[in-house]
């Protein structure tokens, strides 16, 4: 099963032009390498502060673009990784071993199961599912259930 591990942002991580603390970067790097060697880590990315981002809201036929930064830290994410594990419990165990992204304070990580194309079996034909699987297989950074 694949799980997305979502690292929530903090006011510090989202400061304009903020760069992660180098010690944290290196500690995370070591942790990710351990996961990579165990064949568990499929992808990992950090996100730049929301000052470099935007939101697009759709309401009926209208859409509104709002430039960052965004202030509600609880709604923001700072990064994510994708893990290949046997269960939610296993994903949680690995996450608990991660370095604390906010050594001085509180951090939060959300763990969510990723849809596999086969999960759409009630809605799509086998052929449609395989079409989707093939389309994804060609993508440069796509991760897939092993």
């Amino acid at each position, binding site marked *: 099963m694949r799980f997305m591990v979502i690292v929530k942002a903090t006011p510090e991580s989202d400061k304009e032009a903020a760069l992660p603390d180098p010690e944290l970067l290196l500690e995370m790097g070591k942790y990710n390498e351990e996961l990579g060697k165990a064949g568990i880590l499929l*992808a990992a990315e950090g996100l730049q502060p929301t000052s470099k*981002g935007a939101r697009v809201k759709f309401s009926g036929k209208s859409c509104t673009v709002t430039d960052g930064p965004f202030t509600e830290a609880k*709604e923001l994410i700072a990064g994510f990784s994708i893990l290949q594990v046997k269960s939610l419990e296993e994903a949680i165990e690995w996450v608990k071993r991660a370095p604390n992204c906010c050594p001085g*304070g509180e951090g939060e990580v959300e763990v969510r199961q*990723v*849809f596999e194309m086969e999960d759409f079996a009630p809605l799509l034909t086998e052929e449609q599912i395989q079409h989707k699987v093939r389309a994804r297989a060609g993508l*440069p950074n796509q991760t897939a259930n092993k």
Partner: protein
Amino acid sequence: MRFMVIVKGSKESEEGAPPDPQLMHDMGKFNEELIKAGVVLAMDGLHPSSKGARVKFSGKSRTVVDGPFTEAKELIAGFWLWQVKSLDEAIGWVKRSPFSSHAGDSEVEIRQVFEMEDFAPVLSEEQIEHKVSARAELVGQAKK
């Protein structure tokens, strides 16, 4: 430049009901267009938060809270990773997505992704190269 294009959660995505077939169809066509344009690096949808959990970090302690989580606005329903020339180009593509022609409200957040070279102010050249090759190996492994 790489961007993570985040589809925010909604009451519908959290209910776990099957997606509207027309939206699924239109999204499939949109994705094909994006892929043909060489924009898509990766994409995935997420199961409702009832199948997930949160881990709170406080110093050395870890607390686990099971889903579901109620504030749909704080949740992610799915994402793409795109390669485009600018934030404006990413916004342009998002505006053309099927969300614009379907009933109901949707929100998409566009965030630039860090490249290892962005850490040049805080890491040495060697440390950056080490991270770059670790990443390359990850991508290679993930695609096997």
